């Protein structure tokens, strides 16, 4: 079976399962919304313009729900020991990894697609961003987060303290994405010229490539029992 077919199958499996039950997407969206609501109370938005903090708040919501998505992504494999089926199958473990990354990016993208308009409404932000660039920025940063997250989640999901260990490992490692994501999202939502954030986007793209490549090489070791 060709490598990319395996990747597509793994990603498709997760997405199809989700489409049928829809429980994960709903949980993720509501959790992210809750984070937004908490920030609504954390700062006084009558005096602070949401646009100064908005990108940061949005990415806090995305990363927290992203951690949930990652945990769940591997938890479902642990149930009924499906993970052993994956390890025994004659597929490249990295194909499994890429399939998982794609599925996670898809879930996080759904959350992002809902949360950005909601935040515009909730915080009365004049929205002038160009949709195409917004989507590009959000997806590139999500890929970076999911790339390292999936690698770490494969390991931490096997422990008893997975919910605590994954953020502990992931957040420091994903600092470049955290910084770049907030910078680029903030510029693109305010419809600032591309030159303002092009170098940040290049950093994100570089991070994505480096860590996707590293994880493809290392995933086998993370997955082994």
């Amino acid at each position, binding site marked *: 079976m060709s490598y990319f077919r395996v990747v597509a199958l793994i990603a498709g499996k997760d997405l199809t399962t989700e489409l049928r039950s829809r429980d994960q997407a709903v949980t993720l969206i509501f959790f992210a919304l809750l984070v937004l609501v908490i920030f609504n109370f954390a700062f006084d938005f009558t005096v602070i313009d949401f646009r100064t903090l908005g990108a940061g708040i949005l990415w806090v919501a995305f990363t927290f729900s992203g951690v949930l998505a990652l945990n769940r992504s591997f938890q479902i494999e642990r149930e009924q020991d499906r993970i052993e089926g994956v390890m025994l199958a004659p597929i490249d473990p990295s194909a499994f990894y890429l399939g998982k990354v794609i599925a996670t990016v898809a879930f996080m993208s759904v959350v992002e697609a809902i949360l950005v308009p909601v935040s515009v409404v909730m915080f009365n932000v004049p929205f002038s961003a160009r949709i195409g660039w917004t989507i590009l920025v959000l997806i590139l940063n999500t890929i970076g987060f999911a790339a390292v997250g999936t690698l770490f989640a494969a390991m931490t999901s096997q422990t008893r303290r997975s919910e605590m260990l994954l953020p502990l490992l992931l957040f420091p490692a994903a600092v470049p994405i955290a910084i770049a994501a907030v910078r680029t999202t903030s510029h693109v939502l305010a419809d600032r010229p591309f030159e303002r954030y092009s170098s940040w986007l290049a950093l994100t793209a570089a991070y994505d490539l480096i860590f996707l490549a590293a994880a493809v090489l290392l995933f086998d070791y*993370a997955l082994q029992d």
Partner: protein
Amino acid sequence: MPERTAILTALERLLFLLTAALIPIGLYVAFLAVPTEEKMGVVQRIFYFHVPAALAAFLGVALCAVFSALYLWKGDRAFDLVAHASAELGVLFCTIVLITGPIWARPVWGVWWTGEVRLTSTMILWLIYVGYLILRQNAENRDQAARWAAVVGIVGALDMPIIYKSVEWWRGLHPKVLKMSGGGGLDPQMERGLMICTASFVLLFTYLLVQRCRLGRLRDEVDLLEHLTARLPDPPRRAAPGGIA
């Protein structure tokens, strides 16, 4: 081979003697021999501990990454021992950096902490390798701990330059606080003092590394023995006639 063991023992003894000699020398140099800096005063002497500790921390991280990769490639547990020990020492010296830094910064800059590039990056480095150590604790068995830790060790080291760059770009928009290290234009006596202190820290690092690796190997042997004896049946009891069984 007895000759090899004899050479290693001799080298180890030499290492111990050098370290034991250079530490008091370093202390003397840092506190007494080197002239007091004119602008910052006596507190600047922390520099002779802070900078070498940072170098030792980076050395630990680099060694961890190299030996993690070697472990994944060759599977020899000795590589994992060195990787683990290096990471631990890296965290130790990084902690020293993060404590001495603010102590130095407060009288000199007036603040305990800033968003400066080096501080932020060092803090992230510390977090990544503390995570490395915690992950090892939570693995199910020794091999899994070694493999997972190797993955984190490699990813962490790969990440560090990117983290540094991204924080630098980010903070570049803000006015830069004055540089922490002496940089160019150091008084030659201070430069010599720094080199002596760096040498003493590197020797200390090496000595601790050797001891920690030995400790790790002994721990492995104990674990193996425990594992083996756990499988043995209980030794038969001898009931004394009419006595308590």
